[in-house]
């Protein structure tokens, strides 16, 4: 029996050896099961920013040839963790600042009261352009914020189905209202650029706190004061950056490069947050923050005393053209 047992052992060993030689890959897998994964991890870590592992594709979509792009992980991390923080700080921070300003300074009143006389501040076409751009901006901002914060803030409230339907429509509105927004931006630039060139007068305006920080102090200003010029250039520069970056997102096959698309989405998102914050300040001062200001864009006509306090040099220019109502401008006297 011992002889037959040793013969059996030798036979098994020979069979095992034969199996190993016949299937080298299986043998390798048996002894080093994680070897490939370790090498892949080293490869990914060795790739620098901008490096890519690309393949070769026969379909017309050349972007699909990007197999591994480590910069995409940084981009994803930015969108998931950093962007919500930037957006939250900038937008909520601006709202908090405005609330504090309102509590401290209150509504900025017309120092001499309403005169009862009005002066044309914005013509119909100017107001049309303003509201065209503004209404598109509001929809673009809300639908854009839905992209960044909707899953966290709105999805739990509405549920998946309603959120999905709303987001699909919001995305369509975002894509196509971008075009009238860009159109309005161009018109706005053309009609208001001549009144928004910065000058020495603007420095004086800033030195005096713009006539809003200190009660009763009103630095001289032409048609647009330094603050309004600031808003104008924020809208133009911000709008151009949003349009340019948005154009690449609307037509992703124009850059046809994943890294370029990631770059433009970051620009689009960051500028959007800053843009929204700046427009909140603009909306505040043009509505609840300043008495008589909203009339400029509502009816186009502002009270003469308001105009004299905030745009004294412009009123003089209009007077010289004969556009100001003649006669004295009595201050409003409260009824007793």
């Amino acid at each position, binding site marked *: 029996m011992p002889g037959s047992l040793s013969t059996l052992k030798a036979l098994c060993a020979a069979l095992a050896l034969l199996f190993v030689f016949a299937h080298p890959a299986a043998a390798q897998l048996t002894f080093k099961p994680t070897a490939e994964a370790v090498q892949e991890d080293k490869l990914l870590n060795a790739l620098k920013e901008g490096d890519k592992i690309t393949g070769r594709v026969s379909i017309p979509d050349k972007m699909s040839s990007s197999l591994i792009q480590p910069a995409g992980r940084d981009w994803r991390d930015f969108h998931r963790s950093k962007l919500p923080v930037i957006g939250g700080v900038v937008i909520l921070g601006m709202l908090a600042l405005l609330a504090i300003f309102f509590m401290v300074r209150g509504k900025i009143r017309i120092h001499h009261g309403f005169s009862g006389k009005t002066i044309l501040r914005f013509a119909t076409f100017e107001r049309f352009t303003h509201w065209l751009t503004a209404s598109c901006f509001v929809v673009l901002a809300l639908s854009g914020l839905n992209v960044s914060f909707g899953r966290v803030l709105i999805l739990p409230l509405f549920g998946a189905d309603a959120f999905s339907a709303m987001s699909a429509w919001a995305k369509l509105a975002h894509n*196509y*209202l971008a075009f*009238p927004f860009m159109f309005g931006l161009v018109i706005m630039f053309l009609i208001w650029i001549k009144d928004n060139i910065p000058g020495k007068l603007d420095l004086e305006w800033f030195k005096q706190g713009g006539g809003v920080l200190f009660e009763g102090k009103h630095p001289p200003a032409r048609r647009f004061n330094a603050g309004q010029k600031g808003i104008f250039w924020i809208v133009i520069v911000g709008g151009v950056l949003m349009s340019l970056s948005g154009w690449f997102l609307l037509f992703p096959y124009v850059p046809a490069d994943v890294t370029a698309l990631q770059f433009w989405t970051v620009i689009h998102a960051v500028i959007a947050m800053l843009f929204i914050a700046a427009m909140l300040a603009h909306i505040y001062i043009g509505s609840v923050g300043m008495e008589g200001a909203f009339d400029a864009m509502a009816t186009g006509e502002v009270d003469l005393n308001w105009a004299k306090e905030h745009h004294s040099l412009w009123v003089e220019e209009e007077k010289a053209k004969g556009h100001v109502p003649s006669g004295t401008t009595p201050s409003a006297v409260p009824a007793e």
Partner: protein
Amino acid sequence: MKVFLASLVFAAVVAVGTAMFLGGIQQASYSAFSTSGARVGDPGNNLMVPG
């Protein structure tokens, strides 16, 4: 108010007009950027709506 409403109507007209124009001149992405062998079926919809 009339100016505001007019601007809303104009924005809607431009948006819808742009959508129709782009829809008319552009080739659908499933056919522009993939060959028939790479399509899953019901092109343009198979990944967007339930089955």
